[in-house]
């Protein structure tokens, strides 16, 4: 009987389908649903949501983690605006966004444009797996690999010596001018594979007729890119931006292992300051305020990026 009933277009109301069969049970609120969700929601609440609330509360106090705390009001927040070191750490984050998000996406777009048919090539899944590999390697391992590249006698300087550029060589992670871009380039290396894999898959989904049509209209490679490829990849660009921007803002392990925020505080980042203040220098209130601002920035940027997503995207 239920099978002859019209299929509901939305899945929101399964009650319609089995209405006659089990009227008594399906019409009422399905209280059992709460029971099934309860264990997960409990764990989430105790270990994630409650701490988030406490984070905001602690950020309003001066507290060293041991003795009694004193009310600070917004002092920990105004400190972020005033303290040049903290301001710098947020500034560094935005430099990292350039290296983690903008450079890989731009590069991957150009590359994807010249490999519009890569998705159909033989062996593409092997390439895809290799290009994506940096994403699954523990960040601590990535950091140790790159410290060897950037070391004073590292392979980068060896390569520079080989082409007669000894004068450029330096301790890349120990130099105030180059440490932050050097960390940023590790991020570029990390994220470009992700972007490339996303875009190649995305281009594979763009109808070939659009490319044929562009060709018939006499569009060159550049016109084709802006008229077909770029609009076709809007959804993938949004995903890439979300993932890479969050990765840049959350960077912690990389800097902890590769530079420890140094030299000086040339590579200190908000996440690193959070850890350092809370667990090394006994400024728990201040650490929480930084964490609140960092979380706020992440949520805000994520929100702004999703605004870029085309309306008709799968949802």
């Amino acid at each position, binding site marked *: 009987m*239920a099978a002859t009933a019209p299929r509901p277009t939305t*899945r929101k*109301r*399964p009650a319609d*389908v*089995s209405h006659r*069969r089990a009227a008594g049970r399906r019409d009422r*609120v399905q209280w*059992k*649903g709460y029971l*099934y*969700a309860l*264990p*997960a*929601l409990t*764990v*989430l609440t105790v270990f*994630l*949501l*409650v*701490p*988030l609330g406490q*984070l905001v509360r602690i950020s309003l106090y001066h507290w060293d983690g041991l003795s009694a705390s004193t009310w600070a009001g917004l002092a920990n927040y105004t400190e972020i605006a005033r303290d040049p070191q903290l301001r710098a750490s947020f500034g560094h984050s935005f430099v990292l966004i350039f290296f983690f998000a903008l450079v890989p996406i731009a590069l991957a777009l150009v590359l994807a444009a*010249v*490999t519009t*048919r*890569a998705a159909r*090539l033989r062996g*593409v899944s092997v390439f*895809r797996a290799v*290009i*994506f*590999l*940096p994403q699954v*390697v*523990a960040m*601590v*391992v990535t950091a*140790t*690999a790159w410290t*060897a590249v950037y*070391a004073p*006698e590292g*392979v980068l300087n060896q390569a520079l010596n080989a082409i007669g550029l000894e004068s450029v060589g330096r301790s890349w992670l120990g130099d105030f001018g180059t440490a932050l871009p050097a960390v940023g380039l590790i991020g570029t290396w990390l994220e*470009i*594979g992700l972007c*490339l*894999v*996303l875009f190649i898959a995305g281009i594979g989904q763009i109808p070939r007729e659009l490319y044929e049509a562009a060709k018939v209209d006499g569009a060159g490679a550049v016109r084709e890119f802006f008229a077909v490829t770029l609009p076709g990849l809007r959804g993938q660009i949004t*995903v890439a931006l979300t993932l890479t921007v969050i990765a840049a*803002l959350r960077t*912690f*392990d990389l800097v*902890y292992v590769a530079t420890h925020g140094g030299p000086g505080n040339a590579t200190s980042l908000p*996440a690193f300051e959070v*850890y350092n203040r809370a667990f090394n220098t006994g400024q728990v209130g201040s650490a*929480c305020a930084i*964490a609140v601002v*960092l*979380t706020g920035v992440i949520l805000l940027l994520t929100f702004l990026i999703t605004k870029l997503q085309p309306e008709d995207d799968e949802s």
Partner: protein
Amino acid sequence: MISRRERALNYAVLTVFAALALVPLVGVVASSLTPRAQSSPTFTWPDHLDWSNFSTAWAQGHFATYLRSSLFVAVSVVLITGVLAILAGYSFARFDYPGRSLLFYVTLVGLMVPPEAFVIPLYFNLRDVGLTDSYWSLILPQTAQSLAFGVFWMRNFFRSVPSAVIEAARLDGASDRRVLWQILVPISRPALLTMAMLVFMWTWNEFLLPLVMITDEAKRTAPLGLAFFQSAHTTQYSLLAAASVIVALPVVVLYVFLQRHFITGMLSGAVKG
């Protein structure tokens, strides 16, 4: 048809970027096989293969202990997350009750909030109840974090199962519980595998949480152990490289066999986050 020039160009681009991705990692592997006498502070290409770095690093760095900790924590998180995500995903996908969407969006908060945000209060909470420096201090918070993705992932999968399948079972008198465990769970094996792989990788690679929670050397996880090992062995890169390979290998091996699961999961999981 693809012209020959275009094909060559496509392969060239793919090859260059595959090589770029591999160079630092191959450097680590090559250095790890370099005899100690030849070792330097950077990558080295071995004159002859020498596996002794692995045994030395394994013994000096206590990696047997660290890997055991990591394995125990990661498997626990995968199992607990799996069960809880299946239950909650079922609830959000197949039940109708007030506040369902709200509760679902609340779980999604965990997808966006960085661990830096909740680790400080969490540390003091767990310290107050004497749970810091225990495996629980790693397992429970990481389960919470993984659940955000897990619930989202399982809910979407359960929603994609045609209603007819479930209605047929109900006609046969199957209870909610039987529908879940005997129909939905068996057909969602690929989705479950993807989730398990991602959660395993995230937990295995997690660094901040063990750094904050664990002081007992015997409970250090592999990445944490590597960070300590690194600060003690800055000059002997071949040894550090061997230790790095030991830490990265379990996830990389899984990745080699199940790369499709890793890639689709990592790319689609964040789509709507």
